């Protein structure tokens, strides 16, 4: 069981700010997770369509598509940040 969090327009397009999932055993990288998530709903697919506009944090640290997933508790998916 792990928590997925969505922020900003990713949250709006997916339609929820969080969901609890069980990560399939064959999903071992961030890139594979995104591919799998995109199949969950049209909203997920739309939000994740342009991967260049997607940023990821695994257990609250920035990750890349190649980052391996070792029993993460929390993965956040969001647009490039615009603070400051």
């Amino acid at each position, binding site marked *: 069981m792990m928590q997925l*969090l969505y*922020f*900003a327009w990713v949250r709006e397009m997916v339609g929820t700010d969080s969901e609890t999932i069980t990560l399939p055993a064959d999903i071992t990288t961030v890139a594979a997770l995104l591919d799998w998530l995109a199949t969950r709903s049209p909203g997920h697919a739309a939000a994740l369509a342009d991967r260049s506009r997607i940023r990821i944090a695994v257990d609250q640290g920035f990750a890349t598509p190649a980052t391996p997933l070792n029993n993460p508790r*929390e993965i956040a998916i969001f647009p490039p940040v*615009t603070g*400051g």
Partner: protein
Amino acid sequence: MIAARLQSEPFDSAIVQAALLAGRTDLGAAVAFTGLVRADEGLVALTLEHYPAMTLAQMQAIAADAAVRWPNTIGTIIHRHGRLLPGDSIVLVVTASPHRAHAFAAAQFLMDWLKTKAPFWKREEWADGTTRWVEAKGIDDAAAERW
């Protein structure tokens, strides 16, 4: 030591700077950067969304990184979240150092990294009722790359 705070309330930069300098006698230079909501034509409000579990930790990591790069420099960074109006302050970076070059450099570094590494997202509300998520700027990435 560079402290980080995350809050919805306004801040008073003069009070923050006075607190930073209090009791220190070795500081010749203080830089206070304030980021403000620009009142672009038709902008009604700006809402800053953040990632509660990560944002403050990320701000503290950026602050700790700056404190290693400029060991004589102290500072305070404050970032607001929530709904802000044109003219409101968004972010404050105050640095102080024995010499001005370090105070300026640390403040610019902190701002460049807050722009590109702190998990905040800005949503604009316009007078015609539309909302728009602010797009990240390549110029901010370029600014952060120089450090």
